[in-house]
Structures are given as structure tokens and as C-alpha cells.
């Protein structure tokens, strides 16, 4: 009876004793610091999975996406800023891996088109108003 009780106690206590020793796999496990974890999660939402390309790494089951989540958490836990980690991944896979568009000479049209459209629309409206007044 005593032995059985000991056995049960060991069963209950074993995982408790083992968990701090076992290595955390940061592909699936949150960082202990909630501030860092929220930074990591925000970054994962804006990094594209290079296997299933429509998805961010936060929502992909691909092995490589898990590897990238682990990398993001490890780099952030090591004190890097999310933008440094993004730059690291962009340096490996190019701009395509980031969902956040960058301002550069090739991407300038992307930023200028909405502005031009607004100006064009304003010009059209202004013209229209002037016609009515006349």
C-alpha cells in the first residue's frame, strides 16, 4: 500500500520535476517574458512561411515555419529587436519573406500610387466644383 502511494506520488511529481530541465522548444512554447513574447508573436504574424507562401509563420504547420518561429523567439530572447530579426530573415530570403513592405527605389510606386490617386481625385473634384460655379 505504501509502495503504491509512493508510486502514485512519483507519477504525479515526475513531470513537475522534469519540466524545468527539459529543453523548451520555442517553435511551440511561449517565451517566459510576456513583453518579449508579444513582440515575437507580432513579428511572426508578419513573416511569410516560405513553404506555404500565403501564410505567416505564426499560422503554418510546416516544419520550416516552426524552425522560423523558434529562431524568432530565440533571437528576441537574446535581446534583438523584432526589426533586427526581420532584417536577418530578409537577408536570407529577400523581401518576399516579410509581409511589411519597405520603402526603397523599386517599391516607391507602391507608396506613391495612393498619393497620386488622392491628388488626381482631388483635382477632378476641384474641376467639377469650378464648373458648377461658372
Amino acid at each position, binding site marked *: 500500500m505504501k509502495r503504491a502511494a509512493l508510486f502514485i506520488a512519483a507519477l504525479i511529481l515526475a513531470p513537475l520535476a522534469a519540466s524545468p530541465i527539459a529543453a523548451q522548444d520555442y517553435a511551440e512554447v511561449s517565451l517566459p517574458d510576456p513583453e518579449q513574447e508579444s513582440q515575437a508573436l507580432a513579428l511572426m504574424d508578419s513573416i511569410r512561411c*516560405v*513553404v506555404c*507562401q*500565403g501564410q505567416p509563420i505564426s499560422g503554418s504547420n510546416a*516544419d*520550416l515555419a*516552426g*524552425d*522560423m518561429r*523558434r*529562431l524568432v523567439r530565440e533571437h528576441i530572447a537574446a535581446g534583438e529587436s523584432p526589426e533586427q530579426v526581420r532584417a536577418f*530573415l*530578409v*537577408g*536570407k*530570403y*529577400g523581401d*518576399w*519573406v516579410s509581409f511589411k513592405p519597405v520603402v526603397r527605389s523599386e517599391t516607391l510606386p507602391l507608396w506613391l500610387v495612393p498619393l497620386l490617386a488622392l491628388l488626381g*481625385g482631388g483635382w*477632378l473634384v476641384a*474641376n467639377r466644383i469650378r464648373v458648377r460655379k461658372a
Partner: protein
Amino acid sequence: MTRKLILWLPFGLLMGLFAAFWLGLERPSDHIIASRMVGQPLPEFAAEAAIPSLPGLATADFRDGKPRLLNVFASWCVPCVQEIPMLLRLQQAGVEIDGIAVHDNSADLSRFLTENGNPYDRIGLDQDGKAQIALGSAGVPETFVIDGQGKVIYQHIGVVTEADMADLRKMLASRR
């Protein structure tokens, strides 16, 4: 007349956008993600021996003056089987080929190499994808050409077929 045309312009642009989005839905783009490491020194990595009979792999192994192939593969990767005969032919021609086995294990790898042949001089086990990400590799199989100074000079994405052999040989010969 011109004014009328200008007034139609926003509608025309909208239709153009609509058509572009529609076409985008019809043909979802499947980008080939090329590594940005081509033209750069091989990034630092160290991968333990994947099977007991072959050594593991680290960046320093690539700076011995000999150009070689670095093949990213896995025993669970079906197309990887297809390129082994090509790699074996390159090996017979004296090309050194090192492998990075992604998300793999010793038993499966040993079976894979027994069944298909072993073109590799070294195989590093990349259980957490660190070496793969360091290389900027987005999948398996991929084959990199590394020159004797440890610089990545070429990346082939996908299975190495007969048609790719000439390019690989040319890149290997370019920095002897």
C-alpha cells in the same frame, strides 16, 4: 470630349485593377524563393554527424580550396530520391558532395542511403532547421555550389536532373 474621357478614367482604372485581382486569383503565384546567400560567404553553422559512419558538417570544412556541392535533403523527401543517381555520377567524376539532412534521424537516413546509394562525404543533421535557414534554403531538395574559399556561388532549387548537370559542372569548374 477630353473632359468626358478624364471622367471615365477612374472607372477605367478600377476595371483594370479588378481584372488584375481577378487574374491573381486565377493564377496564385508560387514564388521560387532564391537564397540571398548566393555570392556571399557560407554562413556559420555546425551540424552534428547525422549517421555514425560519416562525419558531420561545419562551415570551416568548406575552406579547403576545393569547390564542392552542398545538398540540402531529407530521407522523408520523395523527390530527393530522384536526384541521387545524378549526385552519384558527380561523385564518380570526383566531385565532393556534402549533405545537410533536414528534420531527419539516423535510422531513416541509413535506410535511405542503403536503398538509394550514398553520394555524400559528410552529412550534417539539421534537426532545428538552423543550418537550412542560415543558407536561405526554403525547401528540399536544394543544391548549393560552394567555392574553395567557402563562398556560396550557385543555388539550384529542386531536383537535380540531367538538364542541370552542365550548369553544376560549369559552376564547380569555375573556381578550381
